[in-house]
């Protein structure tokens, strides 16, 4: 579905990614974990061509995506839940969802898609005439995910969905991500919360200073000493 090879990208002279490789197969839930500044969000931005990359290959469903602008990628089937949610604060919940469906759906399709989103998130139905900016953080995260699902993406990219949420919402959001994947959505999950990510993902990549330092099945990475040390509350030994 998505393949990234030797990706290098940066901001001005600062190189944030120094050769990232990752692969997401159809139907998979893959996690990309790493600490602050490891390059997780930059990877996402480079995939979406929001940041130019200096080297490397990115392909979505076998087609190269270099120089394909983000709005075209959305139409080709990449759904995004951006970091910090970025719901359209001055628009209502319903308008947010309608916008999510703008890229790929007809009016009647959009109505059905919205119905499905409301079934998944009943709270959004209750609040559909409310401004998105007036929702709580967790509700906004649900809206951001619902908005991305409106276009029925083939690949869903989630950037730090747990960021800034109350623990109860974090659990709920992760359970939901796992469920969406079981229902057939291919997902690339970018997260700092390694514990929960490795619980729901099939495979994972660990990013450090712009490089993939580890990768493998999530079950194995959970016990990998380096991961345990750095992310799962182990000692910060010799690092």
């Amino acid at each position, binding site marked *: 579905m998505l393949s990234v090879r030797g990706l290098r990208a940066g901001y001005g002279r600062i190189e944030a990614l120094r050769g990232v490789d990752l692969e997401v197969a159809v139907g998979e839930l893959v996690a990309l974990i790493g600490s602050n500044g490891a390059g997780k969000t930059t990877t996402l931005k480079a995939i979406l061509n929001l940041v130019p990359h200096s080297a490397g290959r990115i392909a979505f469903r076998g087609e190269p995506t270099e120089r394909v602008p*983000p709005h075209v990628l959305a139409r080709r089937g990449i759904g995004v839940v951006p970091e910090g949610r970025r719901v359209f604060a*001055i628009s209502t919940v319903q308008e947010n969802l309608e916008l999510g469906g703008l890229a790929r759906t007809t009016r009647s399709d959009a109505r059905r898609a919205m119905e499905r989103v409301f079934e998944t998130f009943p709270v959004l139905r209750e609040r559909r005439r409310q401004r998105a900016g007036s929702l709580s953080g967790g509700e906004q995260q649900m809206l951001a995910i619902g908005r991305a699902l409106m276009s029925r993406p083939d690949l869903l990219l989630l950037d730090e969905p747990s960021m800034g949420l109350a623990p109860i919402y974090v659990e709920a959001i992760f359970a939901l991500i796992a469920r969406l994947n079981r229902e057939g959505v291919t997902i690339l999950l970018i997260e700092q919360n390694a514990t929960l990510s490795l619980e729901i993902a099939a495979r994972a990549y660990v990013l450090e200073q712009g490089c993939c330092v580890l990768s493998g099945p999530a079950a194995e990475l959970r016990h990998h000493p380096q991961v345990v040390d750095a992310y799962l509350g182990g000692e910060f030994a010799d690092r």
Partner: protein
Amino acid sequence: MMSRRPAPRAALAVAAVAAVAVPPLLAPYALHLCVMVGIFAILALSLNLICGWAGMISLGHAGFWLIGAYTTALLTTDHGIAFWWALPASIGITAASGLLLGLPSLRWNGHFLAVITIAFGMIVQTLSVNWEWLTHGNDGVSNIPRPVLFGHRLGANLAFYYLVVVILAAVWALMHRFIVSGYGRALKALRDDEVAAACMGVNIARFKVTAFVLSAGIAGMAGSLYASYVRFLNPDSFGLDTSIRVFVMVVIGGIGSIGGSILGSFAVYVLPEVLRPLQQYYYVIWGVVVIVVMRFLPGGLATIWSSAPPGRE
């Protein structure tokens, strides 16, 4: 607009009836003010398209207004073309000039874009002074004919007033359709968060440029009406102060509100006239009025009917 409560239907109906029924009863000078308010309302609506829905700032709208006005003025005088052909020509040429600002709007935002638009307005005004072969420079263009409709020349200001009202109503309807369409929703999203909008499949570049081109075209239409109404143009009427005045109309009326732009044009154009007998105090009072409106109605006059200010979360 948005989650604000719209003005009660009754108030709108009264305003519409008054707009049609009252002007025949007015003194000539008051009628003149009404025509100017109508023309400025069209201009303010065009700017509102950029500020209110696309979230960009233009302080160069007098430039578009000038291009529309001069196109009609020169075509109808120097080339003897009828107003009804000059009007679409004004719209077309001004819309094309909208590209000149639409393209920079892709790279610059906020106050950078505002400064670029100021420069645009100044360049256009300077050209209208210096390209004497085309514009007659500071001499201006005089004896611009009034439109002829079904064999009748709209010489009387009252007849011209109704022409302006009809066109204003058409612009209102167009803008209204535009806002409820997916296009309007996309523009609103783009104003809120460009990157998120792009990720939802909104083609930012196309939307921004289209907003500028449409806005410029409508401003050109206002210019065309202005030229044939006042019948004499010179570059003085199209300076930065005019651009700012139109911007104030949009802000006072309510950014993103159609009715607000019309209300704002009325307030900004008529109030100084009412206050004029106060002479040197009038600027002071006018300034205080603007500050008070902004303090207590930050969403503009359009929100006067809703209790809570539409604060941004």
